[in-house]
């Protein structure tokens, strides 16, 4: 029995480390065909390079940005804004979610308000925040924060409300105090919700930072987008878009590594 479980377990973890299975090859092939088709069409003049660029031109444009070192200040600016926004949203969202879940009168006020905010496009706050905080990084951090905060609040708030009461009683019966219950039951239960919301909130934090830069700024990937657009530089525009996707995917990768480690028990269910 033990051996069987152990081999099953080994099998699942091996699966995850094997990158070249059937679907991966098919996906890579589809992407390759599309890129080659695009490049070829651009070369023979089937598509207009001025508007649609071509894969090699895009690589060239972004490569030049890296070669000249101009990109780093933009990359760092956007990363810093998005990550600060995310961090503050995590702290504030978790704190308010925690307090609201344990305080019904407060929840009665906070929940409908945030529910409303959750259902409208919060990005519209961008111009207001820039008016208040200026065109520097603080307004972008604020926008990233505002987008992510609501989602994290609901993750923690509903996570706490749906904690399995049987587990709470189990810890109490085994001699635990209120503090033990928080530590052994509430905190791990909420972690599940926070991790699943992080997939959404990382994206939202970047949206906030980039759109903020797009509206008004003097640096950042959003600024670069806006600059490329106004100078009709399609290659740079698409290059920056690809760069943003790459950065977010890299963050997702780091995140899922952390999640796999912290939530090992979860992967087995």
């Amino acid at each position: 029995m033990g051996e069987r479980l152990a081999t099953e377990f080994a099998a699942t973890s091996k699966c995850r480390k094997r990158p070249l299975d059937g679907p991966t090859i098919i996906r890579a092939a589809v992407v390759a065909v599309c890129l080659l088709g695009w490049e070829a069409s651009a070369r023979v003049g089937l598509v207009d390079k001025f508007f649609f660029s071509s894969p090699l031109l895009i690589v060239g444009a972004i490569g030049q940005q890296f070669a000249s070192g101009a990109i780093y200040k933009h990359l760092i600016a956007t990363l810093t804004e998005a990550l600060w926004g995310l961090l503050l949203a995590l702290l504030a969202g978790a704190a308010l979610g925690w307090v609201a879940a344990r305080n019904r009168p407060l929840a009665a006020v906070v929940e409908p308000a945030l529910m409303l905010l959750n259902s409208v496009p919060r990005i519209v706050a961008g111009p207001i925040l820039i008016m208040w905080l200026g065109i520097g990084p603080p307004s972008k951090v604020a926008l990233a924060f505002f987008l992510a905060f609501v989602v994290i609040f609901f993750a923690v708030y509903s996570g706490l409300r749906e904690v399995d009461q049987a587990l709470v009683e189990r810890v109490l019966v085994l001699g635990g105090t209120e503090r033990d219950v928080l530590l052994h039951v509430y905190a791990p239960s909420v972690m599940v919700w926070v991790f699943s919301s992080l997939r959404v909130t990382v994206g939202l934090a970047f949206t906030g930072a980039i759109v903020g830069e797009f509206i008004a700024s003097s640096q950042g990937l959003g600024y670069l987008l806006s600059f490329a657009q106004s100078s009709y530089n399609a290659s740079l525009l698409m290059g920056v878009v690809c760069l943003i996707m790459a950065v977010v995917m890299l963050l997702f990768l780091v995140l899922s590594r952390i999640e796999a480690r912290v939530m090992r028990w979860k992967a087995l269910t």
Partner: protein
Amino acid sequence: MAIAPAVAPPGVLPGKHPPDVVLDQVVKRFPRPDGGDYVVLAGIDLRVDGGTFCSIVGPSGCGKTTILRLVAGLTRADGGRVLVAGQAVTRVNPRVGFLFQQDALLPWRTVHDNVALGLRLRGTPKDEVKERVHHWLRVVGLAGFERHYPAQLSGGMRKRVAIAQTLICEPEIILMDEPFTHLDAQARLFMEEDLLDLFVDGKRTILFVTHDLDEAIALSDVVVVMSAGPASTIRARQRIEFRRPRDLLGVRRDPGFGELSAALWRQLHEEVARVYGRAARDRVRSDQQV
């Protein structure tokens, strides 16, 4: 099997008389959504002598689980007294071990850490925790599964983890709420035998809630039949005199077993009929209104 002197072997609680559990005119109500009260228990008188195994049977919704929760201190009585070893229960009682119907193991802790939980919460030194967990995992047949998570175990294995988790704290009172309901018939028989081996040594007081009358008779010293809810009371109380240690299959073949079973079933049957009769009457009435 060498056990360090600091670790008490299973079931040996030296020099202590197991505590009596007494419910004296206990009343328990729950608020209803319409503002009224739903009376679950209406004056329960129950005395379980220290060291005996008492089963509680009764129709669904009669408040069997509520009795266990009162004894554990997870909920308070609205009237009457709940006494453990002569002391009123005012908070969650650390001398009590509670086996729930669902095996409420922490899904984010390994088997080892789940079993160790009670000792860690009590601040037992690390070395001792390790040794006792090791011992108890061997007792319940789960040595080698220390690093597994609950999700990787079968229902029966999880149940055994829960048993080790409960017994490692050496409770003097054990409350069990239909612990084997979700197990298949074979696993159930094995668990019942384990239960007799591990728990029933005259050194613990046991309250066992079950739907299964035969299971109750085979395991217990006393079987209590409760009346149908709401406002349940104790309807019958029967001593079971089969000698211990018992062979579960042998006991069930004993001629006395059939008589006991028939006598208790008559009592239980009337109560169950009341529950269904009431439901049937309500159904007829609502049909007539239509």
